[in-house]
């Protein structure tokens, strides 16, 4: 306390002191019951990058706590929780599940562009009408193969049906995996009238046997590495992420086109931390974060303003021209028929 007279009476002094103290104390109070943001996230390299670098940075910047659920499956948990108290604030999953979630009314269709300024910089596909919420990363679904087994040149999707690959062909359990579902639709386009020609697709699946089926891309990656599988449907990230390890594997973008495997974020309608959730979406779309994640797991960033290092730029989809080659499946159409499709493919692929 100084000895000079303050130009205010006692009441004013007390009021300003109180205001001053509360200003100083406010951050402490805020931190004491810091908001919690509940999100979902993959494990593996993505999970490591998130938990080691990106999440702590976000928590620091926004003075909050982030809880990531990495235990599959996410959607049933969200579905079973109440609409006003959802278990997640932000749902991160692939497009097919986001559309199913939208159908159930447990996620919001669009991201508020006013709250998420970075959304202005994304490629058109990331907010197209085939999209729920916003896509933050994408990968190209094509064919992955071994280079040391003396296989012939693979350049078309149809090469997968070559009898030479019987016994080393790899695919996905269609009912549970979006790559498998996208591939099914592609088969309709390859052998029939288009991506909605299910009869042609089913016939093509019959001809694809024998094939080793897995339910997740991570497993497929390992099967290719161990040689259990020689040619498989996989996204470019699944092959490229082993770059620098001298693995005898390569990714082929088939001539008929690559399908889009999208990492999509949506908000839940009942979220109590809407501002924080939007801040998180904005954060994930920011150039710095996009670059870090893209280079750690070889995903193609949705933000068109991101500049990746050369070796990533070469292989990933980072220009409007390259991005235009992505085929976005009509998940709304697929999900409406999922039950009958699942019944049918379960029957086709039974041992």
């Amino acid at each position, binding site marked *: 306390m100084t000895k000079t007279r303050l130009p205010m009476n006692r009441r004013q002094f007390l009021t300003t002191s109180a205001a001053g103290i509360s200003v100083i104390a406010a951050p402490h109070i805020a931190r004491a019951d810091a908001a919690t943001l509940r999100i979902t996230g993959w494990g593996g390299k993505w999970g490591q990058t998130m938990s080691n670098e990106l999440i702590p940075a976000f928590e620091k910047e926004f003075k909050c706590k982030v809880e990531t659920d990495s235990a*599959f*499956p996410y*959607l*049933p948990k969200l*579905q*079973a*929780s*109440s*609409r006003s108290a959802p278990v997640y604030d932000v749902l991160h999953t692939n497009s097919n599940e986001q559309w*199913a979630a939208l159908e*159930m009314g447990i996620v919001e269709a669009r991201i508020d562009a006013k709250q998420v300024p970075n959304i202005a910089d994304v490629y058109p596909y990331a907010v197209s009408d085939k999209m729920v919420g916003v896509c933050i990363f994408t990968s190209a679904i094509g064919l992955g193969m071994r280079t040391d087994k003396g296989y012939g040149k693979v350049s078309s999707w149809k090469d997968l049906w070559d009898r030479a690959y019987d*016994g080393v062909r790899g695919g996905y*359990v269609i*009912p*549970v995996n979006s790559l498998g579902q996208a591939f099914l639709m592609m088969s309709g386009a390859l052998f029939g009238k288009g991506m909605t020609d299910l009869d042609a697709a089913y016939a093509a699946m019959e001809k694809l046997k024998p094939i*080793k*089926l*897995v*339910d997740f891309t991570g497993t497929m990656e390992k099967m290719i590495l*161990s*040689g*259990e599988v020689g040619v498989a449907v996989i996204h470019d990230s699944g092959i490229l992420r082993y770059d620098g390890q001298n693995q005898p594997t390569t990714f082929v973008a088939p001539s008929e086109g690559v399908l889009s495997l999208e990492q999509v974020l949506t908000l839940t309608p009942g979220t109590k931390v809407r501002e924080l959730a939007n801040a998180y979406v904005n954060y994930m779309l920011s150039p710095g974060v996009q670059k870090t994640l893209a280079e750690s797991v070889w995903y193609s960033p949705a933000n068109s303003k991101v500049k990746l290092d050369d070796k990533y730029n070469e292989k990933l989809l980072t220009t409007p021209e390259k991005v235009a080659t992505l085929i976005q499946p009509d998940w709304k159409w697929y999900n409406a028929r*999922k*039950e009958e499709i*699942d*019944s049918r493919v*379960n*029957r086709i*692929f*039974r*041992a």
Partner: protein
Amino acid sequence: MSTVRTGITPMAWLIAPSALLFALFFFLPMGLMALISLLTGNPVVQPNVSFTTKYYQRILGDPYYFEVIWTTLRIGLLTTLAALLIGYPLAHWMARIRGRTAYAVLMMTVLTPMLTGIVVRTFAWMALLSDKGAINQTLTGLGLISKPLPLMYNEFSIVLGLTHIYVPYMVLTLVGVIARIDERLEHAAQNLGASPLRAFLEVTLPLSLPGILAGSLLVFALAISAYVTPILMGGFQIMTLPMLIYQQISSSFNVGFAAALGMVLLTISLVLVIAYNRILGLVSGQRDLQ
């Protein structure tokens, strides 16, 4: 056999804690599931739901589901049989062995598979049975085969995996029962001229029947409700009822149908328990001659 008591004793009150536990945390949730199987949606989170039997109609109307049920039962039976054939000799050895250390070692052998964890054990079988796994690599290396044997992703690998997991349960159930059979009965039979094998078949085996039934029921019940191992070992190409339930919950998001399938499974299991109790009653009746 215990003497027959008439009337409820004060001990009966001890059932209260468990009764409460079951009522609140088993029957209520299960009742909810049964209810959901007859509604169009989840009443807990959705406002407008109505009654429907469409899920049960779907199960009864499509032969695919009978196939799935039959596959589930078949795998259960094969697993139970295998577990019995493999587990009985070991249980017999353990029950009759002298020496505390020897017994402890065998107990460790039996418990260790149970302790490894279901995920890891299945991973181990993948490491053994897959085309690039231990068995195929060894056989190829020795020049005995040119193409890898298809040991994974079929019913064989599922039964193998499940048997491996449930043999310890069978052994632990049988050990107690066999140990309680008085060895002198076997000796008596042999003194009367029977060979050890005959003594076993006509004395020990019949007396261990309650244990066989108990162990078989346990293994069968566990085998028909297993899904982690069938998924990892069968690669979704063999579809069992629990796998279908899991698929419906996790990727079709059709809780109503999953609940209906679950009720079907529960019904089958309850029928089995009732049948088991009946048979045990008959068998125990015979045993009273002891």
